[in-house]
């Protein structure tokens, strides 16, 4: 029962109207509406990349909107920075904790607002006492005088919550605060959120867990591809309806995976676990097959890929390539065994931005191309030319730095780099993130071709149409586990989304 619910609509406390925000050519928010009423918890749901986090950062004053209006109490609200948002009474709990590891827990909570005594000195004792009170309210015990370094993720999140509470905020924004929390801690958080609502505050709650959304919130706003879809009272909605609106688009036939004859199993992963990240992940990929790892951001998909490739360690389990066990934590061995990983973050993990296209394209093959330990220009150039031509990389010259290329062409160079090693197994993380539609189609055609040549492809993707169009099989991960395996015929948007949000589906 929400105090704001009965009778006439109360005037919104915080209102957004037609807010847009673009990063370069990518429109992250396209005319978003949102009205937060006093005394109400309001849920914001949407797929990965629907624009939720951008919206949060806009409300927090970290991003300035390109256009649109924001009002607080009916008065226009302009946020020039996070400090303005704070002053307006907007507190944010970010998805990833933003703590200062070297400072104490209490300082983290009260940074910039520490209680003072004479000569405007910080009153450390009062600050620790206040922090202790906040933790009592949350029903947890964290030593306020200990440094934040070394706190568990859950405790870090609790410190963030205590920080937001200490503001006595009028608007509390929580961006997936419960991902790291246990059931009891979630209950306490909700109790605090409800007590804030009772005092007339407005709460914006972002979560992929529908049970929590329906438990806490009085209204639900759905975003899709940066655009506002709907805002309704929770009572008028069902989980099915919300999922349908989140997905809500036609599966385009942009992503044709050609049927290829399935060959032997090339990659086999058994019982792979890493404490706190993923557990008991098992799957196999055959030659000629594309297997998609679907799931929400933070479900542990990239972490699994990195562990399989040997960039990260794992606690238990094993990885076999064509039947032979791959030693853990050794990417060199993985490459030698014929595995290639095209990472999610091209700039940081896949490319050396300052080096030329040809250098990047042949980076993973330096040894094979060198004679007596020397890399000779000719060999590099010939190899680079072969692959960039096949992938149709658009660059003025091979000697141009990679940084000068467009996102789509950069992605092709990363692909060229790994394809040049002539792998048998290709792991590709978000193959088409941030690249234009035309290039997307080319990348898809290429992946399909490669599978046709007998490669085993493991594809991680947050774009449902891509997953559904390309994959022979879909593995859905939720909170570090593979919760569902769907063959091509059974995978559709609803079944994948259901499993990804942890709705009752168990494999």
């Amino acid at each position, binding site marked *: 029962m929400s105090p704001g619910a009965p009778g006439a609509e109360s005037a919104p406390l915080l209102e957004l109207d037609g807010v847009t925000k673009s990063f370069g050519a990518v429109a992250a928010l396209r005319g978003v509406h949102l009205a937060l009423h006093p005394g109400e918890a309001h849920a914001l749901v949407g797929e990965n990349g629907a624009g939720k986090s951008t919206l949060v950062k806009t409300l*927090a*004053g*970290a991003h300035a909107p390109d256009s649109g209006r924001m009002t607080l109490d009916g008065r226009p609200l302009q946020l020039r*920075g*996070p*400090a*303005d*948002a*704070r002053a307006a009474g907007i507190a*944010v709990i*970010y998805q990833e904790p*933003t*703590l*200062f*590891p*070297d*400072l*104490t827990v209490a*300082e983290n909570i009260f*940074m*910039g607002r*520490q209680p*003072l005594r004479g000569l*405007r*000195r*910080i009153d450390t004792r009062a600050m*620790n*006492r206040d922090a*202790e009170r906040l933790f*009592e*309210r*949350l*029903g*947890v*015990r*964290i*030593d*306020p*005088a*200990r*440094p934040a*370094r*070394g*706190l*568990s993720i*859950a*405790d870090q999140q609790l410190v963030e919550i205590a920080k937001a509470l200490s503001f006595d905020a009028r608007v509390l924004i929580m961006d997936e605060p419960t991902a790291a929390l246990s059931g009891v801690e979630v*209950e*306490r958080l909700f*109790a*605090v959120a*409800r*007590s804030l609502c*009772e005092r007339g505050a407005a709460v914006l709650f972002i979560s992929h867990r529908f049970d929590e959304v329906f438990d806490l919130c009085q209204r639900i706003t759905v975003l899709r591809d940066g655009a506002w879809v709907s805002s309704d009272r929770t009572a008028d909605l069902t989980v099915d309806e919300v999922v349908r609106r989140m997905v809500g688009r036609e599966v385009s036939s942009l992503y044709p995976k050609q049927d290829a004859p399935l060959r032997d199993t090339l990659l086999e992963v058994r019982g792979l676990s890493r404490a706190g990240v993923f557990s008991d992940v098992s799957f196999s990929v055959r030659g000629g097959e594309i297997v998609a790892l679907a799931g929400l951001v933070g479900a542990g998909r990239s972490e699994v890929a990195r562990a399989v490739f040997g960039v990260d360690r794992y606690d238990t389990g094993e990885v076999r390539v064509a039947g032979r066990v791959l030693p853990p934590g050794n990417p060199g061995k993985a490459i030698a065994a014929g595995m290639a990983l095209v990472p999610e973050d091209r700039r940081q993990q896949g490319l050396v931005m300052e080096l030329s296209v040809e250098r990047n394209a042949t980076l993973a093959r330096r040894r094979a191309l060198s004679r007596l330990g020397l890399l000779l220009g000719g060999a590099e150039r010939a190899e680079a030319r072969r692959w960039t031509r096949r992938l149709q990389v658009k660059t003025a010259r091979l000697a141009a730095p990679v940084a000068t290329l467009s996102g789509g062409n950069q992605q092709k160079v990363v692909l060229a780099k790994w394809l040049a090693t002539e792998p048998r197994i290709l792991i590709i993380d978000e193959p088409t993130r941030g690249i234009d539609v035309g290039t997307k189609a080319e990348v898809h055609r290429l992946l399909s071709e490669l599978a046709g040549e007998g490669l085993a492809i493991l594809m991680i993707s947050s774009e449902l149409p891509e997953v559904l169009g390309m994959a022979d099989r879909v593995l859905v991960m939720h909170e570090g586990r593979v919760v569902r395996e769907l063959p091509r015929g059974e995978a559709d948007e609803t079944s994948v989304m259901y499993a990804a949000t942890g709705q009752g589906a168990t494999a």
Partner: protein
Amino acid sequence: MSLTDTGASVQAADNPPPGPGRARRGLTERLLAVRELSLLIALAALILVTTLRNDRFLSGQSIKDLLLGCAILVILAVGQTLVIVTRNVDLSVGSILGLVAFATGELFLAAPGTPWPLALLLGVALGAVCGVVNGGLIAVAKVPALVITLGTLYAFRGVDYYWAAGRQINAADMPRSFLRLGNQTVLGVPVLFLVALIVVAAVGFYLRSYRSGRELYAIGSEPAAARLSGIPVGRRVFAVFVANGALAGLAGVLYAARFGTLDAAAGTGLELQVVAAAVVGGVAIFGGSGSAYGAALGAVLLTTIGSSLAVLRIDPFWQQAVVGALILAAIGLDRLLALRMAARLRGRSAHGA
């Protein structure tokens, strides 16, 4: 509301606030204390060993020389602490010191009647202007401070050389009242050292007890989080470079008063000693932790090593090696303490007690 209340009362029953509050307080503070204590012990051991070999090392004159010798390095190390804590570094302090020292000499040449307090103020102001140049370039160019101040290290020194044009200024060119500042003692303690003490106390107090002081640690600890929590990162970093420039200016004036003889090379290479003193004193080079007191102790320790090795008649080559070993030892100690603290924090259950 009812839910929270129950939670709180249950909690309060088995967790009386004052007890844990006091018992658990100050793990971080204790760590700092351990760090500073270990420096004091090293200093005491060094003095003891040297005195055993040569009892004149603890004579009044010798101690006076020591305090006089370390004062300038202490001031610079404390200024550098302000900068390093924010995950920056200022390599131009040696050049600022040289420039200000020469400018002070020039001032007395041009206007011999200038009262020394005015000269002091002007020197500090010139240092601050150099700091403005550093801070401004860093803010505008968005290039790491290491690179910018490496540039201004040469730029300021270049200005100095151009200005000096090979000339040297001698003690005879400066008023006696000013030179006395460099050698006079109050109750046996050199004035220079007293000035350094005041700087240490002021900066130490500021860093520990003021909101903006704590924000400097926050910036160095996690710059992205600092921005998200509304700390004016750019303004604070700018201010820190100005303050450090001003302190280097102060050190430059004191240098002129102490040595009397000035040419364009004054303070060359001093910046590395300054950074070494701060690091030995427990200021983390990646920002976020360390204290002005520690940096000052580091400066005293480095100076004492210099003179004690001389007393022990040890080859100057070894002095360099010892300083190097000390830096490595300091880093090793920091790492050890950090590991031990991490172990202790893990030892506690996630929710304290």
